[in-house]
């Protein structure tokens, strides 16, 4: 019986596991390896970070789901891939180290016929001295981090209530960060919370980002058709910042975070400091530290993984100037070029380049967003690869691989701007395609009829609906597969 090993149980890996099991039932053995015992609906961490949800509302244990679905589960982390197996057995295998409290540190070699790498990002706080919850700033990347942020925010709100003035800085903690959408969301949720609690006027809220313009969001900004005009996401976002009285510092690379002081460089090369009382700064992402070895023991990590640690797939990795970036550069099947039975999905695959225009300061510091791979594409890619593998297991290696290029895929992004069934608000954005195609759509590179943005209470309802729907789906409850990724 064929064995499929999936490394990672986040949005992409868990989606792939459920679809594989549904497709193949007992025709294959499916094993998921993940160091965390819980699944986390990461988008709702934003609400945990302002105390509107608890950690338990955004996470659930994976083991019972996998048991019910007859999917093997190892609470462990993968440390190395051996795609060629060992000298006496050519079958590929993965080295895993258990994090399961009952087996901590135990090692195992897991053989596979197909391998899906869905390990998501390594939260690279170490890239900026002083960054992160173990040092001088907060994070909302995990539910645990978000809980810590909520507690710190509460302390600030108490001080504001006592009449003190406070500066709250929210943004990204390095010039090469991605996920600006999450920083944007957290900014407006905090701002909303401060207003709700009646302390807004004593708080300075500052958004600190590596984006060139507001509304870039790592996708090079968008153009929307609105009321008979083409409006930029820049103007649209600036309007929200003006309305809510939030200051923005853009084109910034955070160099260091000292207690209460952020040191940053701007794109023009100038250096500045910003004092803060509360800072939530997202870390830059890189691939998780996995090694790869040939059957003779040779280290082939650089063949399998790009320098940023993400898995190389069927993308065009040739270095080209921005003007020559094309939709075709982006991967379609997510198959590893050197080993046909390895695939990389979600954040774990190495993108060919950014989406936003790359920029450097005169000091040579890169200050531009890395490309986001949000929940929707991560889920769609996970599912597509699962179906490709199911086809190959059923029909043999000649079965054509399915495709899901981000250049042929749209995305919906709902950036919460405050909670409450009657008082909530969100910026609801759709875009098509994610990767701009200036040949098909001259100008902005996106289809104006499918790229839109609107702000209102209904966006909050949608975000809340997605929270419940995706947790229902991830729990593999009745009819889960009808809910699209």
């Amino acid at each position, binding site marked *: 019986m064929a064995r499929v090993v999936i490394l990672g149980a986040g949005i992409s890996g868990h989606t792939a596991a459920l679809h594989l099991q549904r497709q193949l039932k007992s025709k294959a053995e499916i094993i998921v390896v993940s160091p965390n015992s819980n699944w986390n609906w990461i988008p709702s961490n934003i609400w945990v970070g302002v105390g509107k949800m608890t950690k338990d509302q955004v996470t659930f244990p994976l083991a019972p789901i996998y048991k019910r679905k007859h999917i093997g589960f190892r609470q462990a982390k993968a440390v190395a891939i051996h795609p060629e197996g060992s000298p006496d057995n050519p079958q590929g295998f993965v080295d895993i180290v258990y994090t399961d409290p009952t087996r901590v540190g135990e090692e195992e070699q897991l053989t596979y016929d197909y391998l899906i790498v869905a390990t998501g990002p390594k939260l690279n706080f170490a890239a900026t001295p002083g960054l992160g919850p173990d040092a001088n700033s907060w994070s909302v990347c995990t539910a645990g981090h978000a809980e810590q942020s909520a507690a710190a925010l509460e302390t600030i709100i108490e001080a504001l209530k006592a009449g003190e003035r406070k500066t709250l800085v929210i943004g990204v903690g390095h010039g090469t960060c991605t996920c600006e959408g999450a920083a944007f969301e957290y900014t407006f949720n905090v701002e909303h919370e401060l207003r709700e609690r009646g302390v807004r006027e004593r708080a300075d809220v500052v958004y600190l980002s590596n984006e060139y313009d*507001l509304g870039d969001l790592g996708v090079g900004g968008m153009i929307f058709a609105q009321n008979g005009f083409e409006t930029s996401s820049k103007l649209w976002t600036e*309007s929200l910042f003006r309305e809510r009285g939030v*200051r923005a510092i853009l084109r910034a690379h955070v160099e260091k975070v000292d207690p209460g002081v952020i040191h940053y460089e701007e794109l023009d090369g100038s250096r500045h400091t910003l004092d803060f009382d509360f800072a939530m700064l997202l870390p830059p992402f890189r691939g998780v530290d996995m090694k790869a070895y040939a059957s003779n023991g040779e280290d082939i990590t650089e063949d399998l993984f790009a320098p940023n640690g993400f898995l190389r797939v069927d993308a065009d990795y040739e270095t080209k100037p921005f003007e020559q970036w094309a939709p075709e550069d982006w991967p379609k099947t997510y198959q590893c070029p050197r080993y046909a039975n390895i695939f990389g999905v979600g954040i774990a695959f190495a993108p060919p380049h950014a989406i936003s225009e790359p920029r450097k300061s005169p000091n040579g510091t890169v200050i531009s967003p890395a490309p986001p791979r949000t929940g929707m594409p991560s889920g*769609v890619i996970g599912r597509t690869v699962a179906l490709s593998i199911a086809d190959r297991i059923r029909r043999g290696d000649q079965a054509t691989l399915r495709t899901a290029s981000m250049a042929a895929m749209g995305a*919906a992004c709902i950036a919460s701007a405050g909670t409450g069934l009657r008082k909530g608000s969100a910026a609801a954005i759709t875009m098509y395609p994610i990767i701009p195609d200036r040949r098909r759509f001259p100008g902005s590179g996106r289809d104006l009829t499918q790229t839109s943005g609107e702000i*209102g*209470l209904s966006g909050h309802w949608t975000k809340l609906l997605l929270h419940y729907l995706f947790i229902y789906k991830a729990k593999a409850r009745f009819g889960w597969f009808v809910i699209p990724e």
Partner: protein
Amino acid sequence: MEQMSDVDRSIAEAPLPTVKTLRRRKSLGYQATRFIAFNFRMMKMVTRAHH
């Protein structure tokens, strides 16, 4: 007084929503229609991504 940066200036010149727009953003009836419209658009996009 602290000098205004280009970004501050750009934000200061951005259009503010009118009272009517702000009211519409919170109006339950209007938002119910926007909820349906947005989810319809999102579903169209999702079905496209699945083929």
